[in-house]
């Protein structure tokens, strides 16, 4: 206190108290800090997301389904197109006579967890492969849609004027085309030409493994479904474009490409993530619909839709063959829908419909 400063002070004087002007020590400084650590957009969004139990539960389900679909077939001892003679139409966990004999002889035979189908193919692995096809379709399609839609929308919104008008007229026309009709016609029409194209081109062997109809589905999705994304991105860009920091960047002489890359796209990213996540279930939905009608993926590659479709005939004897793939589709679509809703609430509350 004042005793170590040794300044005598007349109690009536107006002399200022010297103590008040000493430099603050560290502890005092800390006390005065009222700011919390700054919360960025990402931290804020992620925190909201982690607090949402439904979104977290569905994220876990999505991870489990992915493990099931991508890691499952690697570990599982059966092959999705291998027909085991004598093991047709087995019930879950049942063994065929040949397999029983093998067990008698001391060999280890992995049980057919969900039985086998009418051609003696293990059903569990077929469901795993079907889930894989569905997930690939969902993820790849929404990736394609994201790229095309975001670029198109950003360019259209950013440049405005004549370019915007023409680009939006094109979007409007594509928007009013009934999608399923065109998807059906395109996937029927593209199937054979693609098959011929891939067979003549050994370089594309790895892509053709997916099957021409799957690629037809990707092409049709990317031709039609980007328009919704383009519209949303354009709307976002139109608002962001008017912000002060964009004007500042323009005044500093930044090029259009730089402004789109550095200012506009990063600010749309919340919306982009949300919209493309919600695009995944709708792509899976459409694929299973097409496969159910028999115009999706081609045999022997299974898809959840075609598995369900094949099972309808034998519904009375083997109801499990319908319910297993049906349940699998529902779980995948539901978890993506719920996760997408959670993402939207966390990152882009404005988008809430």
């Amino acid at each position, binding site marked *: 206190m004042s005793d170590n400063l040794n300044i005598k002070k007349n109690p009536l004087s107006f002399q200022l108290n010297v103590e008040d002007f000493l430099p603050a020590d560290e502890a005092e400084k800390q006390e005065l800090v009222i700011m919390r650590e700054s919360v960025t957009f990402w931290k804020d969004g992620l925190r909201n997301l982690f607090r949402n139990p439904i979104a977290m539960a569905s994220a876990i389900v999505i991870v489990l389904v992915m493990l099931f679909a991508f890691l499952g077939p690697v570990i599982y001892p059966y092959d999705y197109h291998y027909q085991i003679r004598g093991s047709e139409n087995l019930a879950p966990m049942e063994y065929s006579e040949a397999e029983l004999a093998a067990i008698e002889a001391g060999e280890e035979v992995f049980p057919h967890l969900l039985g086998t189908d009418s051609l003696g193919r293990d059903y569990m692995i077929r469901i795993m492969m079907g889930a894989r096809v569905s997930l690939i379709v969902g993820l790849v399609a929404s990736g394609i849609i994201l790229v095309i839609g975001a670029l198109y929308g950003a360019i259209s919104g950013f440049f405005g004027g004549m370019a915007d008008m023409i680009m939006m007229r094109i979007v*409007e*026309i594509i928007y*009013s*085309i*009934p*999608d*399923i*009709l*065109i998807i*059906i*016609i*395109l996937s*029927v*029409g*593209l*199937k*054979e*030409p693609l098959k*011929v194209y891939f067979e003549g081109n050994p370089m594309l062997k790895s892509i053709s493994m997916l099957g021409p109809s799957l690629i037809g589905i990707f092409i049709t999705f990317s031709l039609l479904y980007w328009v919704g994304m383009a519209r949303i991105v354009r709307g976002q860009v139109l608002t962001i474009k008017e912000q002060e920091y964009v004007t500042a960047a323009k005044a500093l002489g930044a090029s259009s490409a730089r402004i789109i890359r550095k200012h506009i796209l990063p600010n749309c990213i919340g919306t982009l993530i949300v919209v493309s996540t919600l695009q995944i*279930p709708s792509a899976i*939905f459409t694929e*299973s*619909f097409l496969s*159910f*009608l*028999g*115009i999706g993926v081609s045999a022997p590659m299974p898809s959840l*839709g075609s598995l*369900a*479709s094949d099972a*309808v005939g034998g*519904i*009375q004897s083997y*109801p499990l063959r*319908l*319910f297993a793939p*049906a349940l699998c*589709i*529902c779980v995948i*679509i*539901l978890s993506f*829908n*719920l996760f997408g*809703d959670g993402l939207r609430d966390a990152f882009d509350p404005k988008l*809430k*419909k």
Partner: protein
Amino acid sequence: MLKYFIKRIAYAIATVWIISTLTFFLMNLVPGGPFLSEKAPSPAILKAMEEKYGLDKPLIVQYKNYLSNVAKLDFGYSIKRKGRLITEIIKEKFPVSAKVGGIAIITAVVCGIPLGALAALKRGKWLDKTIMVIATTGISIPAFVVATSLMVYFGVKLKILPTFGLKTPLHYILPVFSLALYPMAYISRLMRSSLLDVIGQDYIRTAKAKGLSGFIVLFKHALRNALIPVITYLGPLTAGILTGSFVIEKIFTIPGLGGEFINSITGRDYPMVMGVTIFYASLIVIMNLVVDILYVIADPRIKLK
């Protein structure tokens, strides 16, 4: 106003033209003609057949003929169902589909709107949560899963409802429900969020402050505006019901146009595929047009450009 309608109609025609062109060229891209399926006919017969259906002319001539015929609403003859005009087949089969689809649309709207409104009014309560859980599940189940599960449970296990054909009103229950579930769930979600949006607006507070009863505020002020997003959904809804009917008609063996369309695709009946596609596309485009007009009537705030 008139300018707007002319513009919309021009768009509609452009859309139908694009679809017919796309359909025509895609169908011609597919190798393997319609006559190759079962027993291969002799080259002479094949040639005669191609001549009869005009398939021997150059593509561009075929396209020209085709477009002028489409403009005259003449889709030609079906190849698989010999001697039958496609227009005739559509006339015969479409009413069946339209009946099932129409009932499904009405069910979806009539059940979806009150459910969504109820959820919005009871926001956060258990009723809201229950309705939303059902609705979210509803938009996650593909129609074919609903249809097959219902068929197994009510038709095969309990044996209380018929599972194929359309003879009695009872026959309609399963197909209509399977068709209507998705749009119903979608509409109730849409309705809930749009009503919540409207309830938060200033004019609702004003209406309440004036001392109007909750009933009048809801029905006269809130619902009218909250219905607008639902109206915009009516266009896509029709499209959804139409395409949904492909699966439903296949599962319940309903003799409608949807099932016929799928058969003609697998049978490569080009004229039939093209005819039905253009028919459906025009139907959807017309529905969208009607919705756009309704939209303007329902909400005078929307300015026509």
